[in-house]
């Protein structure tokens, strides 16, 4: 039986269902103390010092640290997409001379009890001289510090002859579009527990996630520890979405404290802290322009955008802007292209990635633009998309751009084929007829679509070790990470097929830096592609080694052996001699292991379509998503149930992003969205039935399984589709130019007169 392609139930679920999970906050160690972070109450200011008199006088105080105590620790560097000149914008682990956002760590309190640590933190009195904050990324850059501006980088991605495209255009369509700040907001807040191991001298940090190996190496370097001086351990992780598991100041501080205070130090973030200090994302303003011919073919696309980076450049470097520009053209040919992104520092929470970074924003921009082209030329928006699609026979399609250090080459795809299949599946004509009938009857209902290309499987490598133990059980060890997406089950399925053994024998170890030398972790929809490929390779090697040992025991040749029911048997001799895996492992000296490394220089590019049906109540300007459809070609699906789970979960985050979620700051830079009553995420009440069609029509030749990633498909074009549906419902093409479409924003738009499209036709 093949496990690949089966919707098997997850191996990881039982402890999570019975309350036996081990999340960061669940861990306790003897002698453990608690760290509370004191945070800046102002958005920008000069930090002159502290009055610690009352805090130090508190009987529960074990220690209080300010910036001076950790001035020797360098700022946190970049994991991805560094460009020259970013170093001065790195965040110090504790503020030194200036504070640059509300929530910035400025001091630490250590106490035996977290309630008491919080009491003491309230007594720490910083002396901060407020300065006028810079909050709008589109205003002329100011000073980050004397002599250093707030424009940290400008990213330009371009190809083709844009001048000719605009000179030859039949019409030019221009739009200004923006997306608010959102973030992943996993249900588990961040946490770090650093534990000095007196006997071995090794520091262990629990609560790691996403990229444990990178963080381990970075902390070692920052703290001047020898290689192997620290190990990171990933337990259960309560959601990732890009933001969780990046290296933050608090992780480093917990490690420094454990080393210097010589005891376990636990830091658990509360939700208020999370909503003002964990990475945010998405805040972008685009001015985009398309040169088109009379049939709606886009001859050239010219885009300029401003990314609200917040107060520092964190571990992601300029990843978000890089991906925004590089992936903006999506599924369309677009012979001439330019996107220029301004990475601007502001006095707000620093930014990183959030699920489909740059693509949620870019798909909103591109698909809004295509809809505007159709509206202005009086064409059907579907027809305009068909006209611009990259054809199946043009694959592989080289975009003449690079991102994340890789050339963009769309490996496989049939965008128009997927659209046809999708329309047949959802009954497009009937949907349209039904919506038209309801509109006739006076309802404001509409349909909107977004087409997108995703990227997945970022390299350059992944290592896997598979071990058959003396009891015949199989362990897969990987440097990948699990943030709740089902890594253990999927890797076990691939391993089970590769070895030919039952799923119940396999366990998967991930996120433990003392078990495997390197690993890149879980991001960029990479694990099933990269780690899955390495598992396939390691399993094949292990099978060969297993047969070599077994052949001697069975006095036959390795090529005459196979595995059936988790026993090594001779091919075509079901009643012949056989060996269980334990016997072979024991004969080999206790265990048999194989290592494999999968490397790649290219990402793989899945693609899909989002379609939303919404109803707008004109009196309250409330938007209800009535139906939501996703089509997605994943190349090959290892576990369809889990793929669908990823897509639906992402789609719901996309609906939240389109209609509800927004980090709002006031004119002084005070964050206003610091509780779940202010930062609104969808509950089940806001969510319609979500219909997912996963296709396997375009497997990739770039890995042995043909798989592409699943993680970011659900959210990618959700904002684009819902915006278009709202336009359609109101009969006002181009009305929605900003996400989220909150009732207040839509109400104001409804008061605007006439057509919403700024447009100029060439004479």
């Amino acid at each position, binding site marked *: 039986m093949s496990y690949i392609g089966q919707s098997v139930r997850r191996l990881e679920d039982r402890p999570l269902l019975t309350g036996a*999970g081990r999340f960061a906050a669940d861990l306790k160690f003897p002698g453990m103390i608690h760290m509370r972070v004191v945070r800046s109450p102002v958005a920008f200011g000069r930090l002159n010092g502290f009055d610690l008199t009352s805090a130090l006088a508190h009987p529960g105080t074990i220690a209080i640290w300010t910036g001076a105590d950790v001035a020797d620790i360098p700022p946190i560097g970049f994991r991805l997409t560094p460009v020259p000149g970013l170093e001065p914008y790195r965040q110090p682990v504790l503020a030194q001379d200036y504070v640059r956002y509300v929530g910035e760590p400025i001091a630490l309190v250590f106490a035996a009890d977290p309630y008491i640590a919080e009491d003491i933190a309230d007594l720490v009195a910083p002396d901060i001289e407020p300065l006028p904050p810079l909050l709008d990324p589109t205003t002329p850059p100011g000073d980050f510090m004397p002599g250093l501006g707030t424009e940290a980088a400008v990213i330009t991605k371009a190809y083709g002859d844009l001048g000719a495209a605009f000179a030859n255009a039949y019409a030019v369509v221009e739009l200004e579009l923006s997306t608010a700040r959102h973030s992943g907001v996993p249900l588990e807040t961040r946490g770090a527990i650093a534990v000095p191991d007196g006997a071995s001298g090794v520091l262990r940090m629990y609560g790691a996630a996403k990229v444990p190996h990178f963080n381990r190496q970075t902390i070692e370097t920052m703290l001047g520890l020898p290689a192997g001086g620290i190990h990171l351990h990933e337990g259960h992780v309560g959601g990732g979405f890009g933001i969780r598991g990046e290296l933050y100041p608090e992780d480093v501080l917990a490690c420094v404290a454990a080393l210097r205070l010589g005891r376990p130090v636990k830091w658990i973030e509360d939700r208020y802290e999370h909503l003002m200090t964990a990475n945010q994302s998405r805040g972008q303003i685009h001015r985009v322009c398309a040169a088109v011919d009379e049939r709606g073919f886009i001859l050239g696309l010219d885009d300029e955008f401003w990314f609200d980076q917040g107060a520092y450049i964190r571990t992601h470097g300029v990843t978000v802007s890089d991906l925004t520009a590089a992936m903006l053209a999506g599924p369309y040919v677009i012979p001439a292209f330019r996107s220029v992104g301004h990475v601007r520092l502001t006095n707000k929470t620093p930014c990183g990635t959030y699920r489909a970074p740059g693509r949620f924003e870019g798909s909103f921009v591109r698909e809004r633009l295509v809809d505007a082209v159709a509206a202005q030329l009086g064409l059907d928006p579907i027809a305009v998309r068909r006209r611009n699609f990259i054809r199946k026979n043009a694959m592989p399609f080289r975009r003449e751009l690079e991102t994340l250090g890789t050339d963009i080459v769309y490996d496989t795809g049939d965008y128009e084929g997927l659209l046809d299949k999708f329309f047949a599946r959802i009954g497009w004509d009937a949907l349209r007829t039904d919506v038209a009938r309801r509109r006739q009857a006076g309802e404001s209902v509409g349909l909107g679509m977004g087409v997108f290309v995703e990227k997945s499987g970022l390299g350059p490598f992944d290592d896997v070790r598979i071990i058959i133990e003396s009891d015949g059980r199989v362990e897969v060890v990987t440097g990948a990470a699990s943030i709740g997406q089902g890594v253990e089950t999927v890797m076990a399925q691939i391993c089970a097929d590769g070895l030919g053994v039952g799923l119940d024998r396999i366990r998967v170890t991930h996120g433990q830096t003392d078990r495997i030398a390197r690993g890149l972790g879980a991001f960029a929809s990479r694990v099933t592609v990269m780690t899955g490929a390495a598992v396939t390779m390691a399993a094949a090697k292990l099978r060969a080694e297993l047969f070599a040992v077994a052949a001697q025991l069975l006095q036959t040749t390795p090529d005459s052996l196979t595995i059936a029911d988790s026993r090594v048997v001779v091919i075509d001799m079901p009643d012949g001699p056989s060996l269980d895996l334990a016997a072979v492992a024991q004969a080999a000296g206790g265990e048999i292991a194989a290592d494999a490394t999968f490397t790649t220089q290219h990402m793989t590019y899945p693609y899909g379509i989002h379609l939303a049906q919404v109803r707008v109540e004109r009196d309250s300007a409330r938007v209800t998503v009535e139906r939501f459809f996703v089509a997605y070609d994943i190349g090959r699906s290892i576990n369809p149930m889990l793929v669908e789970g990823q897509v639906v979960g992402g789609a719901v985050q996309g609906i939240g992003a389109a209609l509800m979620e927004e980090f709002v700051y006031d004119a002084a830079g005070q964050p206003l969205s610091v509780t779940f009553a202010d930062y609104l995420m969808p509950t089940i009440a806001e969510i319609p039935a979500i219909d997912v069609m996963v296709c396997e029509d375009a497997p990739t030749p770039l890995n042995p399984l043909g798989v592409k990633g699943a993680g970011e498909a659900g959210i990618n074009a959700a904002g684009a589709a819902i915006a278009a549906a709202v336009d359609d419902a109101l009969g006002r093409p181009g009305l929605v130019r900003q996400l989220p479409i909150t009732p207040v924003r839509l109400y104001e738009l409804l008061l605007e007169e006439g057509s919403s499209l700024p447009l100029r036709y060439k004479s």
Partner: protein
Amino acid sequence: MSDKIAVSLTVNGESRRVTVEPRRTLGDALREDCGLTGTHLGCEHGVCGACTVLVDDAPVRSCLMFAVQAEGARIRTVEGLADGDTLHPLQQAFWDHHGLQCGFCTPGFLMLAVGILEGNPDIGEAELREALSSNLCRCTGYQNILKSVLAAAAAMRR
């Protein structure tokens, strides 16, 4: 610090006596003083519902209740749901229907759903949606949570 108060309660059928500050939440008392870390704290301001437990059979956010308010109460947490190795029908349904991803919100949803279904075994889908909207999940998109609870409701009626 402030004086501690002794509180007696029953947790998953077992008598417990904890001595806590008046300001200690029930959630913290369960996690830290009773060692039952299956109850998770997602927001500590009463919105996300991850910390939902049953207090005298009613779903309650344990971050919004002080431990001292639970004097004499009968508390049920996720740790008490399964019968040995046999999962509760709701746990089984969440497993069968992929009703969880990261699993952080799951104990809260399970206890909420136990409370809902014990109160109304024949609850309809619309009413169930309304009741489940009191908790947040960031991974699943809720579709499979709804499917799981409906399946469990059917199994529990049998």
